[in-house]
């Protein structure tokens, strides 16, 4: 056979193969590109949802009250869909079939947004006592009883059983705060508090903790905030900076002889003498925090010091096989519950993970979308993502079953929300210095200069540094000079351009020597631990 013929036969064989391979590779590239684009869009929409939740909650002191929280979450879900609708050009109902679940993990539990069965009764009693058939009135028949909404709140809880006398439930949170209820040694108890290492506490003559982890806690503090009123004045109080204390979950301000609380630009005066006295005494929240935590931890250590993971029982009294370690969980004498590696923390993490996974599997598997060929299943979350979930208020959004050309999209996104009034993280305290700047506690400038540490004038939770809105104008709560409303500015060495030289958890928080190398950080640690404790103590808690 001539060369020409061989060449022609070769071309006939190779050309289609090459073309098919080319097309196939291109289609795979398109699929992966589309997948990346969708993930980025899901990321964007989830971030928008976080931002909406942040804006709605940080501007409301009562955001942790359940009704207000549900409203904020539903608003945030709407933002999520609006954002996705804008970027993917789908309608909300189309998108809902591809989003089997959105999880809002909060301080002490979580909500799952998804399809739920409305158990609202078929018959309702009307004003005159008669029965209304809701199935006729509102078309609440079985088919459309499935609707999108928030499922009931689930606590990060775990049940422990020793014998018939000791059978109780513990609700865990994202930090060292726990609530205990149930029978302990035959008596019913319902308690909550922070767990700390009692060995780290030193008591003064009044049996109050004055030293924690080698740092002296400041006894009294003067807390200040700038307030702006509607039309510049309310109940005789003008725009300006006022001292305050948090008294029974309420910030009470003082202006001369006027005591008031503030709500949306209006001052409401307070006449109760007891409250006035509390304001005059100034805040001792930090000392109270450590003292309460010390007493609670001691109680927990005495009563629950022997509880191990093998005591965990499900509601039907069966053992939970995931938990088999034998170290005592609630011991507070030889372990530091605030240490990430402690048994308590590892157990807390396991409980949170276990609870979220089991509920999500149910929620996603039972999800019936419109696409019959697609089977919804919970994707495996990576360890890094779990780390975000168990330490932060987060939103986890899932998107599954969206056709992307030959394949279905299946991915999830976890976005942490670190500006919230849900809880006070070790990262969330900013420290003010008299030169008009605010810093992170691990700021290089502060750590390496003890003279600079002496200029520390206060410290507050990061959400209070957010811009506040009033009548279309803006103001800040922490100002250097209240006359010209000049706010504190972010330090360029830690906040604007985070350095990352010193580790906040190990070098500052857990460091009991008060030194990093040759640098003395005792003033910084004293202040930081005081501010952190005070903000934790003053936070509004529904299960306190």
């Amino acid at each position: 056979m001539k060369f020409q013929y061989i060449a022609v036969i070769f071309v006939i064989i190779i050309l289609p193969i090459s073309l098919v391979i080319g097309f196939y590779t291109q289609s795979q590239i398109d699929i992966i590109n589309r997948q990346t684009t969708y993930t980025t869009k899901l990321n964007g929409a989830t971030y928008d949802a976080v931002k909406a939740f942040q804006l709605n909650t940080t501007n409301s002191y009562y955001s942790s009250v359940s009704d207000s929280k549900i409203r904020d979450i539903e608003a945030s879900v709407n933002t999520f869909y609006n954002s996705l609708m804008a970027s993917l050009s789908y309608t909300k109902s189309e998108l809902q079939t591809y989003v089997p679940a959105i999880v809002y993990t909060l301080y002490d539990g979580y909500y799952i947004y998804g399809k739920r069965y409305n158990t609202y009764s078929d018959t309702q009693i009307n004003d005159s006592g008669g029965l209304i058939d809701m199935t006729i009135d509102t078309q609440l028949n079985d088919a459309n009883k499935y609707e999108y909404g928030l499922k009931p709140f689930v606590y990060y809880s775990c049940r422990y059983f020793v014998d018939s006398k000791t059978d109780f439930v513990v609700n865990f949170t994202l930090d060292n705060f726990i609530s205990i209820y149930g029978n302990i040694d035959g008596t019913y108890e319902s308690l909550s508090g922070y767990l700390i290492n009692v060995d780290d506490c030193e008591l003064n003559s009044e049996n109050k903790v004055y030293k924690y982890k080698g740092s002296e806690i400041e006894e009294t503090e003067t807390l200040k905030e700038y307030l702006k009123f509607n039309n510049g004045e309310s109940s005789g109080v003008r725009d300006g900076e006022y001292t305050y204390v948090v008294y029974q979950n309420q910030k009470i301000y003082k202006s001369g002889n006027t005591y008031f609380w503030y709500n949306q630009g209006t001052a409401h005066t307070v006449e109760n003498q007891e409250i006035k006295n509390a304001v005059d005494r100034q805040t001792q929240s930090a000392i109270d925090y450590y003292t309460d935590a010390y007493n609670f931890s001691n109680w927990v250590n005495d009563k629950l010091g022997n509880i191990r993971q093998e005591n965990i029982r499900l509601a039907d009294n069966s053992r939970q096989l995931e938990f088999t370690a034998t170290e005592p969980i609630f011991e507070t004498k030889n372990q530091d519950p605030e240490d990430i590696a402690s048994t308590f923390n590892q157990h807390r993490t396991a409980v949170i993970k276990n609870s979220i996974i089991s509920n999500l599997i149910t929620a996603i598997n039972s999800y019936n979308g419109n696409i019959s060929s697609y089977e919804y299943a919970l994707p495996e979350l990576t360890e890094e993502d779990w780390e975000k979930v168990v330490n932060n208020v987060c939103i986890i959004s899932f998107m599954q079953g969206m056709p992307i050309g030959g394949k279905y999209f299946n991915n999830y996104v976890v976005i942490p929300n670190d500006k919230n009034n849900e809880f006070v993280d070790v990262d969330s305290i900013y420290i003010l210095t008299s030169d008009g700047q605010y810093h992170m506690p691990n700021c290089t400038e502060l750590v390496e200069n003890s003279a600079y540490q002496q200029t520390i004038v206060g410290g507050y939770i990061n959400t209070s540094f957010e811009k506040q809105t009033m009548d279309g104008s803006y103001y800040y709560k922490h100002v250097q000079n209240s006359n010209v409303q000049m706010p504190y500015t972010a330090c360029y060495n830690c906040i604007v351009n985070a350095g990352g030289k010193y580790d906040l958890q190990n070098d500052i928080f857990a460091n009991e020597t008060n030194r990093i190398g040759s640098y003395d950080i005792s003033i910084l640690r004293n202040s930081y631990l005081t501010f952190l404790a005070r903000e934790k103590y003053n936070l509004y808690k529904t299960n306190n």
Partner: protein
Amino acid sequence: MSDSLITIIAIFLAAILMFIFPLMSMADRTDDISLLAVQTATTEFVEEVGTTGRLTLDDYDQFITTLSSTGNSYDIELTIKHLDENPGVKVTQADITKIGENLYYNEYTTQIEEKLEENGRVSLKEGDIFSASVKNTNKTIAEMLRGFFYSISGDNTYQIAGQHSATVSVNGSSN
């Protein structure tokens, strides 16, 4: 005479069709796959930094390893745009009531790498913008072949490139 000329031409044609064409076609596919790998790696790397607020030396090394596994050498450009929201810094007359007047100031690859070497991590804050751009610096086989046949040359030609940028959605944990 004419027969042998045609045979020679046919041998050339056959050589091109049997060796060069499949080689070019395969080399192009290899580049497509490399391009895909590079784009995916870049997107994942940048999105990871965007959602955690942390750039660690480990992640960066991992990224470089993934890139080099495609068999090419790359020029990586990283940029961090730090958001500066401080009122009064952005304009000469301090006006805190304006929004959207934020300044960004940039840090580039060498500065970022220096920080990574020193501390093992760079923490970012919410609102910062992180971007990475990757281009191949070697000539891939497809490029060489194409250069040979269509004589495309020049220093700035690159075949495999990936870029992505993300706005950081959370303050990087300082632990």
